[in-house]
């Protein structure tokens, strides 16, 4: 892959692009800093706003907008996140200019029709009910709340709660949009069937017309985590979901790369690393048992997830704890570390095989300030990690005593040995 092209437009928006000649379409990934962190104490407002951005603009009603987009075969989606409002789309060379014009319209001049506000309100209420019935979702939310306490943006339910959803008014949405959605802080990555002329004429030109306020505000570091345990009885379910979590590090933290490798070895590589080998492969306790490392601007979280039959709940939790303890008694071997490094370096080819993946990676490089040459430096970054550092960080961060746990499902009076 060639080095990406990076342009700062006059209105402050940043445009990144890379041509992938074998790809027959264009992938779009972008963000503006209008996520949960921007909503302050008005919980649920960012989510509500994000869902209304395809509900019509000043020039086009809801139905016409959908007809225009799908009439050219393009896709656009808006999604609320902890830090940003993200958008993504697909189009072809021939439809790129029209797709970006529609994107800019949706971002700059959404109509927020009252009828749509009420429709989205009902949709949010339904989604809250559906998620409240989802064992994995319930457990993840509880652990997030414990790891990021005091209503930190990383720990909150993005939709707020049913009473918040009822209280949000159209005026609140309009004000939030005006204050936070504009070219300032906007990053747009486009990849695939593009060249310089297409970028200039079909993407940069319409994007330059985006006006409005916005810009990122600093996200406070999360308050200290006090480990806790939550039981969520859901007797009508077949399976119990276990989620264990602890604070991680921000994406730019010096421990990030070594911790990422430690997480890979613990619960990701192959069929879920050491964790999967124990719980799935050797004991047959779970279809899935894996760990994840989520690193954001101001903090991060490390989690373990497993879905088990209730009769195996105790055994599964004890096995997870044993694997965490094993990091002290039997640290990662030289062979494991070598395998992990080879995996991360080799995965550069495989994880960037898709247009959409390249666009997402380009966006990440800009958002976290990794530099446009990041992919060229990545092998050296991973190669220089020492075994000792990886082992030490696994011991430091993957600690049962420093982790919270939530179990959701048909747990009855079952003990949670944590």
């Amino acid at each position, binding site marked *: 892959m060639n080095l990406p092209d990076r342009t700062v437009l006059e209105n402050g928006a940043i445009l990144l692009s890379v041509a992938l*000649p*074998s*790809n*027959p*379409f264009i*992938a779009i990934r972008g963000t503006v800093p209008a996520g949960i962190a921007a909503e302050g104490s008005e919980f649920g407002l960012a989510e509500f706003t994000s869902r209304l951005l*395809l509900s019509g603009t000043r020039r086009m009603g*809801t*139905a016409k907008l*959908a007809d225009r*987009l*799908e*009439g050219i*075969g393009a*896709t656009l*989606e808006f999604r609320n996140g902890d830090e940003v409002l993200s958008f993504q789309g*697909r*189009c*072809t060379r021939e439809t790129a200019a029209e797709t970006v014009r529609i994107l800019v319209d949706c971002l700059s001049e959404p109509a927020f029709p009252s009828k749509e506000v009420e*429709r989205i309100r*009902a949709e949010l*209420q*339904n989604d809250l*009910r*559906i998620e*409240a*019935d*989802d*064992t994995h979702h319930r457990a993840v939310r509880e652990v997030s709340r414990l790891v990021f306490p005091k209503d930190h943006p990383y720990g909150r339910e993005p939709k707020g709660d049913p009473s918040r959803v009822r209280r949000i008014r159209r005026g609140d949405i309009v004000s939030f949009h005006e204050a936070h959605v504009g070219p300032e802080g906007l990053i747009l990555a486009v990849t695939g069937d593009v060249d310089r002329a297409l970028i200039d004429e079909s993407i940069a030109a319409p994007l330059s017309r985006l006006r409005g306020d916005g810009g990122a505000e600093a996200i406070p570091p999360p308050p200290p985590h006090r480990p806790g345990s939550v039981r969520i*009885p859901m*007797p*009508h*379910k*077949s*399976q119990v979901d276990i989620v264990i979590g602890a604070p991680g590090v921000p994406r730019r933290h010096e421990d990030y790369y070594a911790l990422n490798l430690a997480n890979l070895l613990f619960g990701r*590589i*192959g*069929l879920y690393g050491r964790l999967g080998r124990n719980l*799935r*492969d050797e004991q*047959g*306790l779970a*279809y*899935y048992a894996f760990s994840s490392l989520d690193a954001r601007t101001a903090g991060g979280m490390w989690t373990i997830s497993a*879905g088990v*039959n209730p009769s195996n709940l105790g055994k599964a939790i004890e096995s997870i704890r044993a694997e965490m303890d094993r990091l002290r008694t039997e640290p990662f071997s030289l062979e494991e570390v070598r*395998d992990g490094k*080879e*995996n*991360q370096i*080799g*995965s550069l*080819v*495989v*994880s960037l*095989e*898709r*247009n*959409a993946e390249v666009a997402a990676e380009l966006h990440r490089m800009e958002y976290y300030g990794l530099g446009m040459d990041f992919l060229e430096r990545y092998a050296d970054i991973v190669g220089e990690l020492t075994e000792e550092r990886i082992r030490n960080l696994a011991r430091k961060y993957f600690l049962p005593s420093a982790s919270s746990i939530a179990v959701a*499902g048909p747990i009855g009076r079952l003990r949670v040995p944590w």
Partner: protein
Amino acid sequence: MSVVTPLLCLGQLDIARPLSRGAMPTHVETLGNGLKVILRPIPDTKALSTWVVYRIGSRNEVPGMTGSTHWVEHMLFKGGGKLAKGDIDKMISRLGGKMNAFTDTDYTMYFETIPASAMDTALMIESERMRNAAFDPKEVEAERTVVISEREGAENQPDFAVEEELWGLAFHVHPYHWTAIGYKQDLATLARDPLYRHYLRFYAPNNASLILVGGFDVAVAMQHIREAFGRLQPEAPPDPLRLAEPEQRGERRSDLERPGPADLLSVGCHIPGAAHEDTPALVLLATVLGGWRGFVPFAAGDWRPRSNRLYRALVDAKLATDVGVRLESKLDPSLLIANATLAPGASLDRVEAVLDREIEKLKRAPPPKSELARAHQQVRAWARYEQDGVTFQGMLLSAGEGLGAWDFAEALLAKVERVRPEQVRAAARRYLVEEHRTVVRFHAQEVPR
């Protein structure tokens, strides 16, 4: 633009043919042992996706052994022959690759996406997997609880109950009656030996196709493929499936009352097999009704179409929060399914009546040209979006091959281009009829605390 791949390095026993159909050069060749090889080189990519699709799915199972095809799929990650347990995992991981497998009603497919320089690793894994899987009794037993756990995870979602009920009710004779995961009671009692026999019977070069997409040279790849697969022995071809679903005469209904967060409606109408001449019109019928998200799953992600009749009539009207239409094109006659998640306060009767009304409209008048043009454009655009990377291209070719032809999607697209509005109405009149449909209604009961 059509490109013809030059014939290269053909062995005496092999049958080869160049293919001019489709936008990308594709080389197809059959080895002497019956293994069909489909190669799509993409010169400027460094990745390679290797797929093997076997013509075995849950439609080849019998009652008492449901879920066996899927269980066999799980066992094929556990080594055998040159591969010790854990080797597949380790080899692909070291390459930074990804791998997985999918069991469908009609076929089972396996893939590895790795750097193209490591082609031999993928070929060796797939070659060993084809004939030499170990089926160690201890490993079979350990996997029993894993597949049961996979099923129990699905059972946690109300829509799984609806889906299982729908197929069970719509098919009384044909094995589409059960889903690929199988019934829990069968998974609890299935023994190792029948599973192993199931594997030996269906996993053979003459019941499989090998698909490579990515950065390789066709002649070199063919040479390596012959070395890896050429010595594998074929089996007697599997007998054709003789079970055919009798024509449904009269609507079938089921009302499920279970704890859940929202009422659900699912309506399935019988449609012909994928190769039928009406399939192109059914693609557009499904698109006009519920939008189009591509031929295979995954590429569309969470994107949902909004410019379609059911979205307008149900979601815009605040009767549902989500709708979808799936054209389940399969080898044998199957179903077109419309699903709705009801909005708070909406009634199942009302949503069903609106769905009926929209279907009646399609039967009364063909879609306007502008609407059909939009549907055409969606299908056309998704045909490009599904070419996103070597893995999705491999999946598309493999799924097509599982339905009888690797270029199934490309050929279907060409036929879809020629569908006229009147044909969409004719398809609605022929297939969306009450006496051929099955309705499942999920009445969400209060969730116990």
